């Protein structure tokens, strides 16, 4: 019958619009603070000044034409791409580590799709009002009010998207100059194109598509699901407590509780605190006696959900683990005087146990400990690598066309191209010498010493000439590159020497 159903419904389902109700609570506060912090960093970082001698005074500047990445006091060159690889590895392992512990925390609190969607919903809320007002506006025919409110929302979204795009570009060029050039039409075409693409994609992803990105587009949400373990903390509805034996039930009228329920929509009144505490307990006992669960079926957990699911249906792939339903349910439980935690962060294992203990993070598992150790080791290596990196980079290439030259007196000559990149902040002279061959054999032409400006590189052609007897015995030797006056920073490269008749 499944096939028949699919045929009738079709594979495509039109998006059901989601109007989220705002909610207050611990997780909402955490989400908001992450949002503010992340936005502060993203939007303000390009404007942070940083005095430099040879580059614009911008703390974080990815200078693509100059082939360097200025990050505060650190200058990263393309040769350091291993750091980027390491950083990506660390980010991946961190994601696995956190997901194993507390589920899709990244999705719920830190993912930029979630952050921007949250911000866009906030804009929508400020202009169009709370959920019922937005639903009404959505249903009503197009008129002046709807045009202004909906138009205004979209206009603000586009503005926010535009500033997001422009900020992104500002990481790649001096920000104040960029904004000036952008407005006067003098910025590079790449700046306009990049800003345009990011504006459009931000507007589409955070304004129009929202939870569809998480549900249909994003691969991370999918593969994070397989990292859940029975011990993983996730947002769960305590079905045993909520449903009882007869299922959930609305609080019936005429029992005095309905009054509380109406008030529950607003702030909790102080006077009720004193009186309803006992009333709530009484009502709860009454319900449990009848076999009715604790869930009052108010539907608030569904109304606050940014992906439009009902958490009471169980853990599901659409859930981004943002904890807003926890906040919503706790608010309602408080207002009725029921104990909190009907919807809570808990593990599958704990929920299934006959007497659930207080939820806690279980980290003593091989997987979690393994990821944790990998994380510590990789981070330590990255820090070590950044802290102890050399002040120059070198690459020695043997010239292979031809591998060797027989000279007129029978001597064998090999040639090498040495590229030295000065990563230090000032000009530096480098001296090249050799070990393992006679001193006179190394010929550096005009460049036995080469001075290189900061951030620049130089090519030096070296040739080594050995008599045939010596050449036959020399498999390889060492080239030593020494910054003048800093012999401790000398670096040694092993290089091959080729001669006729030698087999590699």
């Amino acid at each position: 019958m499944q096939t028949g159903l699919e045929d009738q419904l079709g594979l495509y389902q039109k998006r059901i619009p989601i109007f989220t109700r705002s909610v207050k609570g611990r997780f909402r506060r955490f989400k908001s603070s992450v949002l503010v912090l992340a936005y502060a960093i993203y939007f303000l970082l390009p404007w942070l000044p940083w005095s430099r001698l040879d580059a614009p005074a911008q703390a974080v500047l990815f200078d693509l034409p100059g082939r360097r990445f200025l990050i505060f006091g650190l200058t990263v060159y393309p040769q350091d791409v291993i750091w980027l690889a390491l950083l990506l590895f660390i980010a991946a392992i961190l994601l696995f580590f956190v997901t194993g512990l507390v589920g899709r925390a990244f999705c719920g609190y830190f993912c930029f799709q979630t952050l921007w969607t949250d911000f866009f919903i906030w804009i929508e809320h400020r202009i169009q009002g709370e959920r019922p007002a937005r639903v009404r506006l959505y249903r009503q025919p197009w008129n002046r009010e709807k045009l202004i409110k909906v138009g205004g929302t979209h206009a603000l979204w586009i503005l926010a998207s535009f500033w997001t795009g422009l900020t992104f570009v500002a990481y790649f060029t001096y920000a104040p100059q960029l904004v000036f050039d952008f407005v006067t039409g003098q910025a590079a075409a790449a700046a306009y194109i990049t800003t345009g693409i990011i504006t459009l994609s931000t507007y589409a992803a955070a304004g129009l598509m929202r939870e569809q990105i998480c549900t249909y587009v994003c691969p991370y949400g999918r593969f994070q699901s397989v990292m859940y373990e029975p011990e993983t903390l996730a947002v769960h509805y305590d079905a045993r407590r909520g449903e009882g034996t007869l299922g959930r039930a609305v609080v019936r009228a005429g029992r005095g509780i309905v009054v509380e329920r109406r008030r529950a929509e607003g702030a909790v009144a102080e006077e009720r605190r004193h009186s309803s505490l006992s009333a709530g307990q009484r009502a709860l006992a009454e319900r449990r006696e009848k076999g009715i669960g604790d869930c009052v079926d108010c539907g608030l957990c569904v109304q606050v959900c940014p992906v439009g699911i009902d958490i009471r249906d169980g853990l599901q792939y659409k859930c981004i683990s943002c904890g807003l339903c926890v906040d919503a349910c706790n608010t309602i439980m408080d207002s009725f005087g029921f104990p909190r935690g009907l919807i809570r962060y808990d593990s599958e294992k704990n929920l299934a146990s006959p007497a659930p203990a207080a939820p806690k993070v279980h980290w003593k598992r091989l997987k979690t400990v393994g990821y944790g150790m990998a994380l510590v080791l990789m981070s330590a290596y990255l820090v070590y690598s950044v802290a102890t990196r050399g002040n120059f980079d070198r690459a020695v290439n043997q010239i292979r066309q031809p591998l060797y030259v027989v000279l007129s007196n029978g001597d064998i000559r090999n040639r090498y191209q040495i590229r030295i990149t000065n990563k230090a902040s000032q000009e530096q002279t480098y001296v090249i010498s050799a070990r393992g061959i006679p001193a006179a054999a190394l010929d550096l032409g005009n460049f036995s010493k080469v001075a290189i400006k900061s951030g620049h590189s130089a090519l030096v052609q070296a040739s080594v000439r050995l008599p045939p007897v010596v050449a036959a015995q020399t498999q390889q030797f060492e080239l030593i590159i020494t910054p003048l006056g800093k012999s401790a920073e000398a670096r040694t490269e092993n290089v091959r020497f080729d001669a006729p008749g030698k087999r590699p």
Partner: protein
Amino acid sequence: MSEQKLQSQTVQTTGHAWDGDLQEYNNPLPVWWVYTFYATVVFALVYWTIYPSWPFGKGWIGGVSDITYVNSEGETKTHSWNTRALFITDMNEAAVAQKPYFDKVAAMPYEQIAQDPDMSGFIISAGKSLFAENCAACHQAGGQGVIGFFPNLTDDDWLYGGSYEKLHETLVGGRRGYMPAFSEVLNGDQVDQLANYVASLSGIGHDADKAVAGDVLFHSETAACYYCHTNDATGRQDMGAPNLTDNIWLWADVPGARTAESKVAAIRGVISGGLNKGVMPAWSDRLTPEQIKVLTVYVHELGGGQ
């Protein structure tokens, strides 16, 4: 059975029935696909208008967009947009960017170019592409040449001299190497004697008696080898006559021959057959003076510059 029944209820047909009960399913394309297709049609129409598209009469429809470029004669031309003109424009821009370097090359003496780290880097990269484009066909990508055909530019032996001035002269005017075929004036034994003598000059295994006879022949008026190769057989660079006393071989494939006999045989072949293929074309009418100067320094830096 029930599934089939359900299908017949849910799947649309085109509404026609032939022969009483023959119907056709209606399976329309997905809407997004159809609209994407329409969009490509619209795109094509726009593209045809803006860019050159259809052949028309003896020409073609040029499109609304024009491109202005400066051709190789220095004339400014405007034409309907085409990638060839775009390419010329791009190349002109690249030439403008390169010009300061080429100007510097033109202004600086050779030695100074070679000693300047910046210019040296430019020579290595610009010279490499110029060499690859113009010289590598014969002298090979690294300048190592081919024995029997094209001289090796990376060793320290020069037919016509390895100074900057001589290299420049070779590049500008080209060279023509020639050696007569001695089978016309010498018999086989004499050629063999000469070959053994030449082998002895480079310390290759040879017949000592024949070499002594070859020595006499070399300096006699019969063979008159010394005319070009000089009395001590070290050659004459003004004529392109190679030095026979060193370890470098261009025409006779001595390094490639395994046995002493075959090495001597290779030399014999050159003496009896002579040579007229040592031709290097003149580059002055193909390359600009700056390009030739870049190549001069580049070849000098290949390792053998004198």
